[in-house]
């Protein structure tokens, strides 16, 4: 996973609540058993004129400059709700997104972001709205997200401070892999399982069937 320190980039404001993972990538756009080849399907239902089509809908913001080059998504409440499909995050990442800003996140989507190097920036609703409204204006400048200062700002708006638990911030900041980190506790896990086997032997199945 790549490390994230600071990013200044165009932001795409989609200021709707409950942007679910079906919207971020419809099930029909998940075509391979892998984590790549998904960017084309990103926001497919809103981005193209019809199901299966690749003709771009002129109404959708991401199909216009400067939003087409956005690396920061600004959304409403409860972004990433719905299906647990990590393809939503893989599609966002492959398209180029590195930050999602919202007043609240679905917990599975938030974890998926962190595991794939996308920074979830949770702000107060009015702060997210101020950024989104400004980004919507003609000639709006870029947004800057700083993972050391833990701030987000754009010309005339902010800076706003956001929070992340240390574990997640360090993984994002350093590009660390969660499994590698956990395997440092290998001995402790083995000892715990040994003791637990005596407490709850029925958890430890002897044979698959």
């Amino acid at each position, binding site marked *: 996973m790549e490390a994230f320190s600071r990013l200044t980039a165009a932001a795409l404001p989609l*200021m*709707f*609540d*409950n942007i*679910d993972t*079906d*919207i971020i990538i*419809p*099930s*029909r*756009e*998940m*075509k*391979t*058993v*892998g984590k790549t080849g998904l960017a084309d399907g990103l926001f497919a*239902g809103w981005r193209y004129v*019809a*199901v299966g089509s690749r003709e771009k809908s002129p109404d959708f913001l991401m199909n216009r400059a400067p939003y087409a080059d956005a690396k920061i998504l600004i959304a*409403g409440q*409860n972004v990433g*709700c*719905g*299906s*647990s*499909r*990590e393809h939503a*995050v893989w599609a966002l990442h492959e398209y180029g997104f590195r930050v999602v800003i919202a007043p*609240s*996140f*679905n*917990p*599975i989507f938030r*974890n*998926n972001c962190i595991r794939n190097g996308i920074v979830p920036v949770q702000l107060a609703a009015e702060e997210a709205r101020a950024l989104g409204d400004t980004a919507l204006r003609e000639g709006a400048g870029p947004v800057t997200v700083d993972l050391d200062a833990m701030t987000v700002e754009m010309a005339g708006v902010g800076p706003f401070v956001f929070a992340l*638990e*240390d*574990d*997640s911030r360090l993984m994002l900041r350093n590009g660390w892999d*969660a*499994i590698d*980190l*956990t*395997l440092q*506790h290998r001995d*402790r*896990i083995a000892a*715990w*399982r040994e003791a*637990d086997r005596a407490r*709850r*032997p*029925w*958890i*430890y*199945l*002897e*044979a*698959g*069937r």
Partner: protein
Amino acid sequence: MDTLFDILWDEHLIADIGDGIGLIAIDRVMLHERTGGVALKSLAAAGRTVMAPKQAFAVMDHIVDTLPGRSDRTLMPTGTAFITETRAAARAAGITLFDLGDERQGICHVISPEQAIVLPGATLVCPDSHTGTQGAFGALAWGIGSSEAEHALATGTLRVRKPATMRVTVTGRLADGVGAKDLALHIIALVGSDGAQGHAVEFAGEGVAALDIEQRQTLCNMATEMSAFCAIIAPDEQVFAALEGRPFAPHGADWDAAVARWRGLASHPDARFDREVTVDAAEVAPMISWGTSPQQAVPVTGAVPSAGGQAAANHRRALDYMALEEGAALIGLPIDAAFIGSCTNSRLSDLRRAAAVVKGRKVAPGVRAICVPGSGAVKRAAEAEGIAATLVEAGFEWREPGCSMCFFAGGESFGLRERVVSTTNRNFESRQGPETRTHIASPELVAASAIAGRIVDPRTKGGA
């Protein structure tokens, strides 16, 4: 003074990683071909192995067709690869696979208790958002992404941010003709689609204890639609009876020891929850969604509400999508299709109630009606009991088990902008087909509406 969630968290806490993150032991991992195959493949590509393959399970449910005579070939373009690659990866990893053609196959959350993979007090994860369904058995069960599934398989643990706790207490009992689906939609409409975000939800009170085990699963299933981290109900004798003797349940002395331990799994009477919500069961009516989020639900006798303040843009978007106006009555809306199935409402009692509604009647002309049992076991039982025959005589299609048309994966779907009443859990835009207009409701309401050809109150004989 701990809550049930706190008890299970502490029992599974291997290490405190700091800043509210715990390293939590995972007792069971379930996978399906949509999101699990990629986790297994990615794990193998990284040169890692499954730490406890006997505690991991995979099933085909999301992509497989549900038409009779199905095979690895699917109506979904590229769907075959998900089936064959998941099969190969599961075999290579040495985990238990419930494959196509296996009589145990079915929707992951339906077959898990049938096999007693889920157990009270156990932690269970699955890369599927509706995993909280299995909290109905007193397990700590939650949905994760594919990367986290890989983590759980490789390490037997997950790094988890400890959620806050929330108790939803249901006082009194639901009226006749009102079920867990109605209760769930009532609660979601009350607290909102993100109303339980960051919270482990315990359902409690007389109205929950009175629910049978299948209705409890429906209730816990829908907690996902208020963004709960997980849902849980304290296990009781009904739960133990439902699991006893099942293939992966403990046997003999282990069973007795397990039940003795499980009987202690309950929130302390003085436990403090971070949030408390109380619902009066007497106020719950048959519910139906009108919009594109499960929180946009009203009693079926009601009307499409007006927007409040800041939500106006979302409200307008939903109205336009659903081709409805504020103040419009739900009863009487003509429908194109009716769907009974999914991890929410595809168990035997769901199908039994639907069959009782349609018995001796016919689906309205022009309405496509489909019933998909949740598992092979449900299908065989429904056929033995005459439920299947009743549904088929009424004009329902009777399918092979799977997730089916709960979601549109590019293959089979409902038609462009069709209005569908559905027992599923999501009414999102294009969820069941291109621009389909989904109304989610109980099996009784869906069955009655299929007969009438329009949305009706299932309590009214012959439809209102």
